[in-house]
């Protein structure tokens, strides 16, 4: 009898032991969050961990590699996979709205302290085309000019300012180029534009790049001019040819200037073996650069949208945005929070011209990032072929437009 009693008591204890964690889990709501960056390893700089502590909602972060991020999210929407918070890229936002893949946030925003009027203009313009607010921008990254101060000093050239013109940039690039005895380039005046900054040059030369009214790629004479200029600079050895070399020529001291995203500041930090600073990209026909962000959205398959909103509200609040700015070096899209300057990377002690970021944000637009990656990638391949003389710049631009017309609006 006593053995049976002991067995019964042990069984009850075992069942209770299994039930407690289940009950605790049910008491604590859990949401998943998809992103393409690994969370910061420092717990104090891990905004998702801090969101958990602040909201009591457990956040399971799923990292999807950047190269596959957009297509994976599209497939999740198509298959109505379980998802809660998705950080959605600009090019996908409209598609997910059309596919009913994400929820409207207006009701939540009406009761929230997030001031939508404080968003930078570009964000407000992007959202207005959708008829409602479906996503909130997690930051506002921009594109800037990086320059090697030591090389400028050696060449006796004044540092770039935020009012530099495109002609100033071209002249400086020529003077900063150093050649070997056999005529090959030892140090380039500037790196070749990358996947992002080709569009900064095209837009600065006067082209619209992206037409939000019909979602089309719009390039023409401006792109032809910029591609022609780059082709000439490659021919003169001022810029390197496009190649499969993966080295960062600027950080390795083989290029005096570079046009890159503002997020590179966090990567460079205090690690470069020379003095460097930043400036606004040079002004050509106009001042132009592309803004980069991701939008916090709630999936339509989310089982607990209220918990998901709690987490998003924290991440968009002063604390969440401050942590994001400090860990990524990207300013907040909310002007009042950005003005606090948390995005100034402490390790980048060389930088004095932090105004370059705020001024770049003022003239930044959501341009090529709203277009399908296949269209912009194809265009950049054509531009690169033009710099190698394989195709005339005008033909490269024309073919890029033709491919875009075949693709967009499918």
């Amino acid at each position: 009898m006593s053995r049976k009693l002991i067995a019964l008591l042990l069984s009850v204890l075992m069942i209770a032991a299994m039930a407690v964690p289940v009950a605790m889990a049910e008491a604590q709501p859990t949401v998943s969050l998809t992103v393409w960056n690994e969370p910061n390893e420092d717990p104090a700089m891990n905004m998702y961990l801090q969101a958990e502590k602040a909201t009591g909602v457990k956040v399971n972060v799923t990292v999807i590699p950047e190269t596959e991020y957009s297509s994976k999210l599209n497939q999740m929407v198509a298959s109505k996979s379980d998802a809660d918070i998705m950080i959605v890229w600009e090019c996908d936002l409209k598609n997910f709205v059309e596919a009913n893949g994400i929820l409207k946030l207006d009701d939540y925003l009406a009761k929230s302290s997030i001031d939508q009027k404080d968003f930078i203009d570009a964000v407000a313009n992007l959202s207005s085309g959708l008829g409602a607010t479906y996503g909130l921008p997690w930051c506002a990254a921009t594109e800037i000019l990086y320059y090697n101060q030591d090389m400028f000093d050696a060449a006796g050239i004044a540092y770039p300012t935020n009012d530099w013109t495109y002609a100033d940039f071209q002249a400086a690039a020529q003077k900063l180029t150093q050649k070997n005895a056999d005529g090959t380039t030892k140090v380039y005046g500037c790196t070749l534009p990358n996947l992002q900054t080709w569009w900064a040059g095209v837009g600065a030369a006067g082209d619209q790049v992206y037409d939000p009214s019909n979602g089309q790629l719009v390039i023409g004479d401006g792109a032809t001019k910029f591609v022609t200029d780059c082709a000439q600079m490659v021919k003169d050895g001022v810029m390197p040819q496009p190649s499969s070399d993966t080295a960062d020529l600027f950080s390795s001291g083989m290029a005096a200037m570079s046009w890159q995203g503002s997020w590179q500041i966090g990567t460079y930090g205090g690690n470069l073996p020379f003095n460097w600073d930043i400036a606004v990209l040079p002004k050509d026909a106009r001042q132009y650069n592309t803004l980069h962000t991701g939008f916090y959205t709630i999936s339509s398959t989310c089982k607990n949208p209220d918990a998901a909103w709690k987490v998003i509200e924290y991440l968009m609040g002063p604390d969440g945005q401050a942590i994001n700015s400090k860990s990524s070096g990207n300013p907040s899209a909310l002007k009042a929070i950005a003005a606090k300057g948390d995005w100034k990377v402490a390790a980048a002690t060389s930088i004095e011209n932090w105004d370059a970021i705020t001024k770049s944000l003022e003239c930044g637009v959501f341009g090529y990032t709203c277009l399908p990656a296949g269209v912009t990638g194809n265009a950049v391949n054509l531009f690169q072929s033009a710099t190698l003389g394989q195709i005339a710049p005008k033909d490269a631009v024309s073919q890029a437009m033709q491919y875009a017309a075949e693709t967009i609006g499918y």
Partner: protein
Amino acid sequence: MAKSSPQTAAQRRRRNNLVAYGFMSPWFIGFLCFSAFPIVYMLTMSLTNRKLTGLSKFLGFKNYVNMAASPTFLNSLKVTLYFTLVMMIVTAIWALFMAMLLNRKQRLNGIFQFFYFVPAVIPTVALAFAFRMIMGADAGVFNYLLTILSGKSVNINWLYDVNTVYFAVFFVTLFTYNTGQMMMIFRSGLNDVPTELYEACEIDGASALRKFRSVTLPILSPVILFNMVMGSISALNGSFALLYPLTEGGPNGATNVLSLLIYKEAFLNYKVGYGCALSVVLFLIAAVFASVLFALSKRYVYYEI
């Protein structure tokens, strides 16, 4: 002994057939689920404008009409046919050459075989990324070695110059798994060539080239056919894993084969319906290649000595 009634024999036959079908059913179910259904679904999707988000509208044959008018597709078709033909021939010749080297009776043959085969077991994507760096214009190993050997500064942009990209790509294909596999199959085929035939040739005073042309090639012809068919399928389907990391279809579309275009259209441009239509075309090209090879085999392949 009593004879079995016809009804019992028929029942037994039916039962035997059912047992046989039962044993075949796992394969058949797998074929239906993982081959037949996806192919039929792909055909139906090719008639729609299905996007990656799942939105879909019936278009009829509009995808095919647009494809025929697309300069990008027409270029890709031309590149695919050229790439497949040349890759098939280049890899087969190289694999046969390596197999013949290994077939010679020499010391340390096993070690040679190991080293010839090692590159083949490296994943194609890793191989492509490695060669992408090796073939860099400014910092690549190729140019560095050529600079040392020639004494002049060499800055060939192997993967971005239309004059050198094909040489670079076909060079890399020599190290892929498909080539290594061909080499092993050729080696196995060479072992089956009767040595008496070579002895007879030597008695008649035939040269090495004559022996190769009149004895080795004819006897090896079924193996050559098999390798060419597999090589063409590998070139058509497997070229994506090599070309996407190596050239991304450039320069200027020179290596933009159909398998790469399918990926770009479906996953970068979100045009899944159009991607399915391109896949149908790729399937037809593979079928045509195999048909042509089998038609040629009637004339050039010897199954009996």
